[in-house]
């Protein structure tokens, strides 16, 4: 154990000596939060802005003066229809436009449904708020007009409205802003992997590449002690990077002058602590996996190739979960990465963190960590690591 600590101390000293790499790693970790949150808040704020002062190009406005008056009363700014409206909407310069059909007046006079066209591109996220607003205003106008017609014929307007839909939104304040929650969890998870990477590669493939592994293995330190020491060092550093990343998010969310976008969600000291507890198995497992993959490379470059698969899995799993529409199955909490991501989301949504779930999320990563460390120790005591220079 003493020797393991000697190895760990030496690895950490060496890491902190590499100033430039250190600064890069820590700066990236610290800035991830502020930068991404700034982008998202900016997006949300501008969406709100667009929706509030909807500028709606209307073609043939003179054919439906009552509709135009209604829209203007609702605070919509009516602007003339540009000739190339389709191209502009496709290019994202305009969100939505309204075209009053040429036979509008005639159709109204005959008592037929009169045609108005809304032109938009729903694949544009930024335009969605404007589209929804325009659509609901026009529907409201149609409802109002319909009700008036029924009353003129002596019918209670309720006849045409058999359902009264009451929307009951169960999202707690913390549940909104899913994208921000996703990013905080995602970056917390990613920090555990990325943080330990340079050190893990240097401590394994690096030792082989610069020919320092053989003399190290000839000392009285056993392969187990050497591996334990290297793992301790990488895990400690990965833990540091996770803490720095979360601190970046925490400081941004608590102190930065954020625009009032109506997404009060929780990332306070309690969530910070929960995040660390949830991420602990990753801070143990990822360094072990990184070291294992690193020990299979003769050079750092070769080891980096081995790492790409791990990085792919870690980055794709949370994204896949984000798009998963069904409720997550219960066993998912036990799966590494998925389990952590799931619990991180629960913690952010302010849900209770059950000790049983937490314990379950630790089991598989703990077993994998031990397996990986055992694998590296075996590899280090195998003669092929010396022969395969």
């Amino acid at each position, binding site marked *: 154990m003493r020797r393991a600590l000697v190895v760990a101390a030496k690895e950490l000293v060496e890491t902190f000596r590499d100033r430039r790499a250190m600064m890069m790693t820590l700066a990236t970790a610290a800035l991830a939060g502020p930068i991404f949150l700034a982008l998202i808040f900016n997006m949300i704020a501008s969406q709100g802005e667009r929706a509030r002062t909807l500028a709606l190009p209307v073609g043939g406005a003179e054919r439906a003066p009552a509709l135009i008056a209604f829209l203007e009363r609702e605070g919509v700014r009516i602007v003339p229809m540009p000739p190339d409206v389709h191209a502009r909407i496709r290019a994202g310069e305009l969100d939505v436009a309204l075209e009053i059909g040429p036979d509008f007046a005639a159709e109204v006079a005959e008592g037929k449904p009169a045609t108005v066209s809304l032109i938009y591109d729903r694949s544009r996220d930024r335009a969605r708020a404007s589209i929804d607003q325009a659509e609901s205003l026009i529907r409201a106008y149609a409802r109002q007009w319909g009700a008036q017609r029924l009353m003129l014929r002596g019918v209670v307007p309720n006849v045409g409205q058999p359902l009264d839909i009451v929307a009951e939104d169960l999202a707690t304040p913390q549940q909104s802003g899913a994208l921000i929650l996703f990013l905080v969890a995602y970056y917390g998870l990613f920090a555990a992997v990325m943080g330990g990477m340079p050190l893990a590669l240097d401590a394994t493939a690096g030792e082989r590449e610069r020919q320092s*592994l*053989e*003399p190290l293995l000839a000392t009285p330190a056993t392969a187990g002690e050497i591996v334990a020491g290297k793992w301790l060092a990488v895990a400690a550093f990965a833990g540091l990077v996770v803490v720095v990343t979360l601190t970046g998010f925490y400081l941004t969310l608590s102190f930065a002058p954020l625009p009032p976008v109506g997404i009060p969600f929780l990332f306070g000291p309690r969530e910070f602590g929960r995040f660390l507890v949830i991420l602990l198995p990753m801070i143990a497992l990822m360094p072990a996996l990184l070291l294992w993959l690193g020990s299979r490379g003769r050079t750092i470059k070769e080891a980096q190739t081995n790492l790409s698969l791990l990085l792919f899995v870690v980055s794709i799993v949370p994204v896949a979960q984000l798009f998963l529409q069904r409720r997550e199955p219960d066993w998912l909490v036990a799966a590494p990465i998925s389990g952590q991501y799931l619990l991180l989301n629960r913690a952010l949504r302010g849900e209770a963190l059950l000790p049983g779930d937490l314990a379950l999320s630790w089991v598989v990563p703990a077993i994998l960590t031990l397996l990986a460390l055992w694998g590296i120790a075996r590899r280090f005591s195998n003669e092929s690591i010396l*022969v395969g220079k």
Partner: protein
Amino acid sequence: MIVVEHLAKRFGKRGEVLAVDDVSFVAPGGEITGLLGPNGAGKTTMLRMLATLIAPDAGRATIGGRDVVVERAAVRQRLGVLSDARGLYPRLSGRENIRYYAALHGLRGADRDRRIEALIDELGLADVAGRRAQGYSQGERMKVAIARALVHDPDTILLDEPTNGLDIMSVRALREQLKSLRAAGKCLLFSSHVMQEVAALCDRIVILAHGRVVAHGTAGELVAQAGTQSLEDAFVTLLGSGEGLAA
């Protein structure tokens, strides 16, 4: 003292490469024993087995009376190894590189620091020991590698081609270092494919070719056995050719 009895080692998937084949010799304490042979003769494999890094397939070897397979940990405690791979940690200073090995050998405190400083003085590293190993010359790197192999004051020292890549001045300094270790009663075993070096330094010589011992003995015994005038001629005669050797 190193005692090697019928040591053998095979490599390859089906053991088709016989790297060391039935090798026996004795390297006594207070002497320098040279392992001479062309490249690929099995010298490095031999030394790695003695350093307990790889396990022999057959035979046994003891260092200071301890078996290299059964008493691995005890052997390592008293053994200094300067292997063919002698990379340093570039971001640590020379002194820190040496201290790391001292700590791995369980040395601590003032004793350890005294020992490190003594080695640094002895090897003429005083000027560079505080600098990062990154910028070291070949010779300086070599000296740090020697210092870390000797830091725990081992009784037995194994050196694999120690003069490889060194300039003349460094080679001479290394020779002096080895002689003073011999004078201190250490058992030294070093491998080389350079005839001059072995002839100049060794009390005993073991000649290896294709994994087997071709001849062994003192310089006088080898010359007598080969019936030649000089030791160099004796090497060539005993090996059958001088191929793979350097003068």
